[in-house]
């Protein structure tokens, strides 16, 4: 039962954090409505403008949510709370699991909000496509979950806010959240090697009833592995665990 209670309180804390809610939900939603309103009948990157931006903003908000969800560990470290919690019977894996669950709950909320806004702006997809889109986005977030936990262990409490904002913005921009990347050239190559690119790409493939192309998977696995291993190393260094 203890794990359930802990996760419940972690969820409570996540959704009470006004900054999380503003950056993960309010900003992406407002930007989506502002950008899509006048352009709702346009096409962009081979799909309807509303669909493209709905997925882009959902990806951005969800990315911010999972980055912040892990990076908040930096604040708990600075405050000594992680030390305090380590002398309770709470298992380390439950501590991290609760952070991941909290992050994903906020990310999922961002997706659902943007879906509703997207539907209001004329996005129509078969039920199967909505589901496929959601699954792809949740999978595509995994590297960012690992990155968030990494940042939570290497950054100071003061640096966390700006770092998350900057990193999310960079991944968003280079991944095509703000508009399609050129079909060839350096930006195209960089984009395809980033996990954020495949978040955005999820919109296109789910509409057509497909999944990511095979080349997407090594990118996601590689980023997850790198961030994950660095996060584990940072955790060990931080706690002195062998």
């Amino acid at each position, binding site marked *: 039962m203890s794990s359930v209670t802990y996760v419940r309180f972690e969820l409570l804390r996540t959704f009470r954090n006004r900054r999380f809610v503003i950056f993960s939900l309010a900003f992406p939603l407002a930007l989506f409505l502002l950008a899509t309103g006048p352009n709702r009948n346009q096409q962009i990157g081979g799909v309807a403008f509303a669909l493209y931006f709905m997925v882009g903003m959902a990806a951005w908000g969800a990315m911010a949510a999972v980055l912040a969800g892990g990076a908040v560990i930096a604040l708990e470290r600075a405050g000594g709370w992680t030390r305090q919690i380590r002398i309770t019977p709470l298992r380390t894996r439950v501590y991290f699991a609760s952070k991941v669950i909290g992050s994903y709950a906020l990310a999922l909320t961002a997706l659902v909000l943007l879906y509703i806004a997207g539907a209001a702006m004329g996005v129509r997809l078969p039920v199967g496509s909505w589901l496929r889109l959601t699954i792809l986005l949740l999978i595509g977030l995994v590297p960012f979950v690992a990155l968030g936990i990494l940042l939570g262990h290497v950054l100071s409490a003061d640096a966390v806010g700006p770092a998350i904002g900057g990193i999310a913005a960079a991944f968003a921009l280079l991944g095509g959240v703000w508009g399609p990347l050129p079909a060839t050239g350096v930006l195209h190559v960089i984009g395809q090697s980033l996990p954020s690119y495949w978040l955005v790409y999820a919109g296109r493939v789910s509409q057509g009833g497909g999944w990511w192309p095979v080349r997407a998977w090594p990118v996601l696995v590689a980023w997850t592995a790198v961030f994950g291993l660095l996060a584990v190393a940072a955790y060990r260094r931080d706690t*002195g665990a062998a």
Partner: protein
Amino acid sequence: MTANADEITLAGVSKSYGHIRAVRDVDLTIGAGQTVAILGPNGAGKTTTIDMILGLNRPDAGSVAVFGVSPEDAVRAGMVGGVLQTGSLPAYLSVRELLELVASLYPDPLPVGAVLAAAGLAELAGRPTRALSGGQSQRVRFALALIANARLLVLDEPTTGLDAGSRHQFWDAMRGSARRGTTVLFATHYLEEADAFADRVVLMAQGRIVADGPATEIRARVRTSTIRATLPQVEADSLGLLPGVVSAERHGDSVELVCDDSDAVLRALLSRYPAMRDIEVRRAALEDVFLELTRDDAAEAAGVAGPVPGGAR
């Protein structure tokens, strides 16, 4: 590892950070139900020692056992509760929610309502942790330590930031826990606190235990007392010749005698000088002992040969 299920045992424990030897070859056994103060200046190794007992740190050498098992296992089994030096409580929870959260982690917690009352937090139960003053936050930490209802309670500088009233309340609650058989281990800078609340004082300096025993015994390590009295027209020099007097000084009408046997000196003075008045006898405070012992240790560290006084047990 000699693992006694009723004891906390440190055997030959050392820990270094780089070339800084934070803890050097410490032996310490704490029996169940004892209230033990670890006293020492900053950098003495108090927090490092406590961290090793809590499993937050592993010793480079030696072994630590908590109630017969490793510190990690003791923590996992919910045998350990504590208050560490922390800057802030987790945000976005009320005081009650935070207590419920921590209570949920332990196998046999105290009721939240009772702990709120014991810590004087009943009025603040619904308040967000962010909206607490420093003293209030410290009371919440104290409530967090209580609610665990653990066999070992570890407190790192628990009353820093508490006012005198809350400090009393805190120690009353701790005594209650100790009576129920909880082992209480606390690090402190407040010498009078160690003196008043601990069965046993472990004095650390530069990573070593330099003295270990009841506060009274530790005080007795420096046998001197000071007698002050109003006694005009008697030469300080002649007072200095009395058996038991180490040194004598005159300040106007009053004299100040540092004695190694104040009882004998006092008897002699009263029979010889019946006019003596305003008599005041002061035992060496723990603070004096503390200064003296840590000074010895500094001298020893500087290369003066000699055994470390005290040692474990």
